């Protein structure tokens, strides 16, 4: 966090905004909107953490950012360009990756096929082979279980396959929806270390976590989401100590 690029408060030379949701209103089908004017900004080399109760709209916010869900109004900006309504395929090409909440491996495919599909849009086989070596090193399980059916891996192992798949194209913006869910402490650490590595590499990370204290400890900026809007946001460490966080979200325990 001493790294100047990662400090959101670094004044006039603040890093460029890589991803921004601006006044996003979004929902499913004809139902009332889930997001009601949500605004979030992520800069290069910064980890922004969204916390909030179940059903607050955290996953929905990420789906809007990755193009899975088109907003009813508001804008999505990626690297200074308006990308509202673009398909996930286009956003992927612009450097965005999204790891979904829960499990999203292709269960009846091998780990190898899963990871290779991360490079589905790229025809340059040499580049993909090189990336495969990189992600295998980042996530040893991927190398160990290369030929196994992905659906037969444990939950935590599957999660690592999903990360490997998402990192195949060296994204510059990564959306992570509860990445530590179901992971043991060691693998949780691996994931958080991985996030830290990405930040150092200048990647912008938008993180959703239920493990709020832990996530806010490592994030740069925190946002508390409720009912489709950001209620409090600020430097993550200050937010972690904010008594309002406890009241709004953590069920009234005193903040530590």
């Amino acid at each position, binding site marked *: 966090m001493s790294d100047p690029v990662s400090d959101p408060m670094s004044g006039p030379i603040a890093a460029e905004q890589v991803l921004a949701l601006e006044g996003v209103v979004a929902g499913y*089908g004809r139902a009332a909107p889930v997001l009601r004017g949500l605004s979030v900004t992520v800069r290069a080399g910064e980890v922004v953490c969204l916390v909030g109760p179940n059903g607050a709209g955290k996953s929905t916010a990420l789906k809007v950012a*990755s*193009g*899975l869900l088109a907003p009813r109004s508001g804008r999505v900006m990626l690297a200074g360009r308006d990308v509202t309504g673009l*398909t*996930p*395929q286009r956003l*992927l*090409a612009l450097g965005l*990756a*999204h790891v*979904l909440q829960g499990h*999203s*491996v*292709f*269960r*009846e*495919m091998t780990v190898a*096929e899963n990871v290779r*599909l*991360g490079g*589905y*849009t790229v025809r340059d086989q040499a580049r993909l082979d090189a990336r495969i070596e990189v992600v295998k090193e980042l996530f040893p399980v991927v190398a160990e279980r290369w030929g196994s*059916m992905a*659906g*037969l891996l444990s939950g935590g192992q599957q999660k690592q396959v*999903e990360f490997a*798949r*998402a990192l195949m194209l060296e994204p510059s913006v990564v959306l992570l929806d509860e990445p530590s869910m179901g992971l043991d402490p060691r693998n949780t650490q691996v994931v958080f270390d991985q996030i830290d590595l990405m930040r150092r590499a200048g990647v912008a990370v938008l993180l959703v976590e239920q493990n709020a204290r832990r996530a806010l400890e490592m994030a740069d900026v925190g946002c508390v989401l409720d009912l489709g809007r950001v209620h409090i946001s600020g430097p993550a460490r200050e937010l972690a100590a904010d008594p309002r966080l406890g009241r709004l979200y953590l069920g009234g325990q005193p903040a530590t």
Partner: protein
Amino acid sequence: MTLLLQGLALGVLTGGLYALLASGLSLYFGVMRVVMVAHPAFLFLAAYLTYTAHTAFGVDPFLALPVTVPLFFALGVAVQRLLVARLAPDNLAMMSVLLTFGLALTIEGLLGTFYTGSYRSVSMDYATRSLTVGGVHLPYDKIIAFSVAALTLAVLFAVLVKSRFGRALRATIQHREAARLVGIPTERVAGYGFGVGLATAAVGGAVLALITPFFPASHWVWIGKLMAVIVVGGLGSVVGAALAAVLLGVVEGVVLVTVDATWATMMFYVFLFLTLLVRPQGFFGGRLAHRF
């Protein structure tokens, strides 16, 4: 003993054909979660086209395939894009049954108008003889049906497993959102999946034309049998359906020679009910077979 062997051999041959006829149903269910009641109607549409090609132009049933297969592929893409994709997701299963039921009736009506209600058949000299091995008679038409089915399924599997399109299709079936996130145009892929399903009907129809007489309402007999096959195999599993098809074909064949035809047909429903009671997810779906 010979009788049993006879039933077994015929069962395997017919089972192979069932596998081909049901593979389309598994694909539709896999890509769109729809129950395509009109699949057998399309099978007989293909059978009638084969009949026309044969009677009007003297074309061998299998030589018409280069025309009917692409035609049916295009029809399948059109059905998915113009009809199925427009159904609301909340009541897709139910509405898809109604929609495809309507399609089946429409096709049946058209066939009745153009071909009248009388029985038609395509008979080729090469299909009328039979091979005798150790007292077991294997009619050539059944052998041809089995071989064509096996070949078509082999091509289908090769496409699903090895090709870029096949990987995209399987990814779309297994996790649609994750597939979109790796850049797969899932809507287009689902349309092509439907097209491939209907393309199998073009082949299946040509085979049916060769082995059985048919009339416009023939498809109703098949929908029940084929649904039983895909439920026993595990909905949406192409491999599961193929295994279940051979199993049911053999059971049918053996019951046919040892009991009677009524019981033989009944076995499909007996297995259907047993599956729903004991293992509703199907016997070959999930871990044993790769659900495509």
